[in-house]
């Protein structure tokens, strides 16, 4: 049999590598900026486009989809061709994939600062971009499967199982979570409401971590670790065990983001137990990686690239142990909503994704440029900058998380909150925020050093766009001829079946959790006194979403005495039935607002307070780190779409009467006039009823107002 000659497409790998490096630096820079805003709120220079609520989604999207996303594609395009002994299926699809993805990133970088957002975490991009993402993702899958189908290798290596699972699961998550009805090009309302929206969102959010930040990187680890160490993979059986158990179990664990909320208890418990079961499958990946280094640990001493891999894998192991611990309800009761969670995700992002990406970049770039790395010393310096950066980031944030979480819960001997003023607990942790920003800066400096080093490396060599290779063609075997060495070899020869079985494994968890929550009425008990938003409140809510208030303020009072005393009656599922999308939030940089409109709550503030607070938060709350929102006071709201908004909400099941959309504008004006008149007559503050602040006040005064407290406390 003759060997066939072909070539690997290195240019597409180079392009994704360059995009990874550039977007990485951009994403981390935005991270350092918002980290600094969390102790020096003036750092947005009172500019709306770079205020925290709008930049934070930009940071997360840039890191997840631009930095890590491009890194995935770089690694997949490099390893897939070599593992399948063939060129990518289509150069055109590769190009569409590359440029399409960059265009999506650019459109995200434009729309998010403009306040065009759905508010759903890591899925903030509006519906036209969502459609583009789905299309480009299909192009990626098409190209990948095309390559697999014309392979010259019989069996699919474990890395490719992970790539396939990534492809099918991310497609499923993205499509389901993006269901929404549009109002014009730049706005949409989620198809799901309240508790159900929360469940879908965290099914997505949790598994975006699982199938965008974890499985593809495990695939990369399985290819690059043995390559870098020149050692065999420790255990083939372990890779089978942890692959299938990981993808099957991960999908169920989403509800652990909603512990002690109004999500039904059985769903919360599912989230807890599946998180516990995830420890071993997650560690399987770390073990197989670290044990692959057996007999090669001496190399780690000299090779900084392997150091990145080892620390990255260790960070993965730590984060995946910590995750299940945070999913225990009693740990979660303290950790949730605090900086602890921020520390946890950054162990994953900076440690696992960041360090692995750096290692892969250092591995690939000299090879495709046929040269040696420009400075080995710089890699070593980068390694220490990155590691110190992670420590300076994580340790202060853990400290801050414990401190604030415990301060929120502390009572005095006579039953009063020790720190009734939320701000007091914020001021306590500000020094930790400063250290965290310093840690981020160290990490960013390291990344810049890497960009310089890679640039110099590329300069010293020449890109080999089409790398020559040869391999024997694949011979079609007769059915009886196949010797099955191990049962799992069967599916490794069948990419289609592997795709189907992966899909079944990841679909089960979602189906079991969603159907009862959507269909069984007792899971979301209705409360008769809860009424839909008035048109002005709805517009105020959309401004709240636009400014990203939910990035710092939760709207979910958990059933703890420390929270009901601070905020008021704990949240009930029936209160959010008209919330498309839900706005529970996941972090309390500021206090919870679920009861901001309930006059029996300590959180209730009158219109004047809100007016002055939005204009200059420091005037009402000295030392506050909330950014000022002067534009809400200066600018008129654009309420031209209120008719459509009411109609769309009705289509989604909100009981506005037929024809109400025609009266909506009138109602809106009337309610706005009432608030403006109150401000003028009772407080002497002159503000026109058209200003956005009026709508925001109306919305805040609607929050948590409708519940009948006297009745529910005894239930």
């Amino acid at each position, binding site marked *: 049999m003759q060997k066939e000659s072909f070539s690997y497409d290195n240019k597409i790998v180079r392009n994704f590598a360059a995009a990874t490096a550039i977007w990485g630096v951009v994403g981390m820079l935005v991270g350092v900026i918002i980290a600094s805003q969390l102790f020096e709120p003036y750092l947005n220079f009172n500019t709306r486009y770079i205020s925290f609520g709008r930049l934070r989604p930009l940071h997360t999207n840039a890191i997840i989809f631009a930095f890590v996303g491009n890194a995935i594609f770089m690694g997949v395009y490099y390893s897939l061709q070599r593992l399948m002994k063939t060129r990518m299926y289509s150069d055109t699809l590769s190009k569409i994939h590359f440029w399409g993805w960059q265009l999506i990133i650019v459109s995200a970088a434009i729309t998010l600062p403009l306040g065009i957002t759905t508010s759903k975490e890591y899925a903030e991009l509006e519906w036209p971009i969502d459609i583009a993402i789905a299309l480009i993702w299909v192009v990626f899958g098409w190209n990948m499967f095309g390559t697999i189908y014309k392979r010259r290798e019989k069996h699919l290596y474990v890395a490719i199982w992970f790539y396939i699972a990534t492809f099918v699961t991310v497609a499923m998550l993205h499509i389901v979570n993006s269901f929404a009805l549009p109002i014009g090009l730049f706005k949409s309302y989620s198809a799901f409401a309240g508790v159900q929206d929360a469940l879908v969102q965290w099914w997505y959010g949790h598994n975006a971590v699982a199938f965008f930040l974890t499985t593809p990187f495990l695939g990369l680890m399985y290819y690059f670790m043995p390559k870098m160490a020149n050692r065999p*993979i420790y*255990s083939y059986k372990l890779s089978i065990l942890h692959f299938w158990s990981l993808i099957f179990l991960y999908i169920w664990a989403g509800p652990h983001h909603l512990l002690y909320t109004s999500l039904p208890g059985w769903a919360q418990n599912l989230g807890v137990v599946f998180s516990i079961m995830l420890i071993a499958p997650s*560690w399987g990946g770390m073990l197989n990686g670290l044990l692959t280094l057996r007999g090669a640990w001496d190399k780690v001493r000299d090779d900084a690239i392997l150091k990145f891999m080892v620390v990255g894998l260790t960070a993965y192991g730590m984060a995946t142990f910590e995750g299940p611990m945070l999913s225990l309800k*009693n740990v979660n009761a303290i950790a949730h909503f605090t900086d602890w969670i921020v520390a946890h995700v950054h162990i994953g992002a900076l440690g696992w994704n960041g360090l692995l990406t750096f290692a892969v970049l250092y591995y690939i770039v000299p090879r495709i440029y046929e040269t040696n790395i420009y400075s080995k010393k710089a890699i070593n310096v980068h390694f220490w900058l990155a590691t110190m950066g992670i420590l300076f980031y994580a340790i202060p944030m853990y400290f801050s998380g414990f401190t604030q979480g415990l301060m929120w819960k502390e009572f005095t001997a006579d*039953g009063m909150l020790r720190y009734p003023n939320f701000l007091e607990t914020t001021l306590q942790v500000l020094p930790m925020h400063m250290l965290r920003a310093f840690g981020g800066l160290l990490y960013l400096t390291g990344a810049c050093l890497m960009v310089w080093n890679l640039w110099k490396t590329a300069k010293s060599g020449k890109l080999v766009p089409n790398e020559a290779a040869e391999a024997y063609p694949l011979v079609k075997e007769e059915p009886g001829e196949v010797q099955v060495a191990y049962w799992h070899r069967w599916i490794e020869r069948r990419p289609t079946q592997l795709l189907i079985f992966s899909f079944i494994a990841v679909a089960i968890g979602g189906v079991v959790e969603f159907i009862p929550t959507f269909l069984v009425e007792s899971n979301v008990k209705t409360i008769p006194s809860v009424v839909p938003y008035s048109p002005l409140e709805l517009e105020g809510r959309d401004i709240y979403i636009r400014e990203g208030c939910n990035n710092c303020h939760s709207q979910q009072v958990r059933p703890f005495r420390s929270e009901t005393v601070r905020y008021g009656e704990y949240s009930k599922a029936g209160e959010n039935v008209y919330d498309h999308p839900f706005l529970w939030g996941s972090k309390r940089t500021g206090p919870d607002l679920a009861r901001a409109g309930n006059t*029996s709550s300590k959180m209730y503030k009158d219109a004047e307070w809100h007016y002055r607070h939005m204009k200059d938060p420091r005037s009402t709350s000295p030392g506050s780190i909330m950014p000022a929102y002067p534009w809400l006071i200066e600018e008129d709201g654009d309420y031209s779409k209120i008719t459509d908004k009411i109609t769309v909400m009705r289509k989604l099941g909100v009981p506005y009467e037929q024809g109400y959309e025609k009266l909506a504008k009138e109602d809106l004006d009337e309610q706005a006039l009432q608030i403006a008149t109150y401000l003028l007559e009772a407080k002497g503050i002159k503000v026109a009823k058209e200003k956005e602040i009026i709508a925001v006040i109306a919305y805040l005064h609607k929050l948590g107002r409708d519940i009948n407290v006297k009745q529910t406390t005894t239930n």
Partner: protein
Amino acid sequence: MKYKLPFLITGIWSTTYSYGQAAEVATSGFSTSLLWIFYVVLGLLLLITFTLYLVTKELKRFVLNKNETEETKMWDSRSSWEKVFQLKPVGTDTDTLINEPHDGIYELDNPPPPWFMFLFYGCIVIAAIYFVRFNVTDYGYTQEDEYIAEVQAAEVKQLANLVKEDQTIDENNVVESIELADIEAGKMVYIQNCKVCHDEGGKGNTGPNLTDEYWKHGGETKAIFKTIKYGVIEKGMRAWGDDLSPKKIQQVISYIITLRGTNPPGAKAPEGDKWVPEISAAQDSTIAMTNAPSR
């Protein structure tokens, strides 16, 4: 007694703060010392089992493997890390390479380390027990149960504290206190609850100035008591009657009275009607005295 065992096993999760309250109720009167005895006995049993295992293993080696082979030497020369992680010696596993390499990458046929499999199945068992306990049996509790237990426990404690206070104070009979201790306690109440709106030293912010002679809802002690207890919701003053005991309200009024006429810098402009207290000479001097150390 019948449900004690599952409780003990899952009791690992029941020991900390939030669960603790509810667990107390769920097991009603189950003594913690018994729990500790159980854990100690359990630990001892585990220790004995492990020792037995080691002894018999050595015995087996002694009986069967008198002659050291090349392989037993390799097993013995493993590093302590390798022993802890129950790994085969490097070199014994190379003959279990799986045949075809992928782009030069070989895979070994090592089984997952035994402790890993223990972790894997152990987590599944724990998860199953957890889920059955909280969703199938009656021994679980919901987060609403936990909340009720937490609030009840706090109420009992608070009641015990309240009994020590004067319960007879209300808006009809309240008189400000001139005891230094009361004024200091009132200052603490003020800082925790009132300062957000009325600012440092009562100079006023979103809430009115409390240091001047102008009052929106009356400056008399009884009137202030009423304002604090019931609030003036439409003007932005919330009701504090559910949060502050009558004694606490009296104390904070006593503190506020000491602020009168202090004229702090940056004070808010007067609001409401002028009201001047009729102060007896005796009271006047006491207030002046208590005023000094409190600031």
